[in-house]
């Protein structure tokens, strides 16, 4: 695995955390939202991720880019959040709450990509957003997710195949058309 190191122009999390927070906030928010699939929960989880990074900033070692370090914290926080949410739904007092992500699909007309993303497991969504939106290499994605790079390759291939099937299914065609016209 190629060792990627932080470039000298990178912000230092110890002395420049406010700047880093400003610069990376939207990128981390998008990663988190692709995993949790809810805009308001994504904001809360993003803030929680940065709070964790702020507490851990002295332990950052520049063996990887600072953005990858932040994304690693954010992915772990988002996956823990989903695990807690699943557990909370098992409690009797919370039975009135939606049972799973299918409610997300029913709640309103979603973009075709968002609907296709919702078909994937959180781990597949994390691999897809890191590699295909943030353009992290397979090795960087593997380091962020803490899995072998071969697993990243199989996860992204599986995710793309599932998304392709979902986006070409007959009920998705009107959504795909509106998505393409919106995003050019």
């Amino acid at each position, binding site marked *: 695995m190629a060792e990627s190191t932080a470039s000298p122009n990178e912000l230092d999390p110890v002395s420049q955390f406010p700047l880093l927070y400003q610069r990376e906030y939207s990128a981390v928010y998008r990663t988190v939202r692709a995993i949790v699939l809810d805009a308001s929960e994504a904001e809360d989880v993003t803030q929680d991720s940065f709070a964790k990074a702020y507490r851990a900033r002295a332990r950052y070692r520049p063996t990887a880019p600072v953005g990858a370090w932040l994304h690693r914290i954010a992915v772990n926080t988002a996956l823990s959040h989903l695990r807690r949410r699943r557990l909370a739904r098992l409690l009797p007092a919370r039975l009135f709450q939606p049972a799973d992500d299918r409610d997300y699909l029913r709640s309103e007309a979603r973009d075709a990509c968002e609907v296709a*993303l919702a078909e994937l497991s959180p781990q597949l969504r994390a691999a897809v957003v890191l590699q295909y939106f943030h353009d992290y290499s397979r090795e960087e994605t593997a380091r962020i997710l803490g899995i072998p790079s071969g697993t990243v390759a199989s996860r992204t291939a599986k995710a793309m195949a599932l998304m392709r099937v979902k986006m070409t299914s007959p009920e998705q065609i009107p959504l795909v058309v509106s998505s393409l016209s*919106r995003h050019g």
Partner: protein
Amino acid sequence: MADEHDELRQALSGAIGAWHPAHGPDFRHLVHRAHAPWRQPIAKASGVSTAILALLFALAMLVVMFGPAVPDGAELRSHLVSGL
């Protein structure tokens, strides 16, 4: 196949790129959240209670497995098994 892949990738980038947080970054709130003073005692209490529950569960499992070998074990074992 490669074109399809690129199209999907492009659509994905467009969709995710259009997501914007409703609230911007708030550093003061972040620092307050990071230093939440209630967090440490609650985490400690939660950890201790989890350890106690795990210990009780392990003891109960030992009694169920080796019940007849300890004094009054058989009675305790039947009580624990009936409660499962």
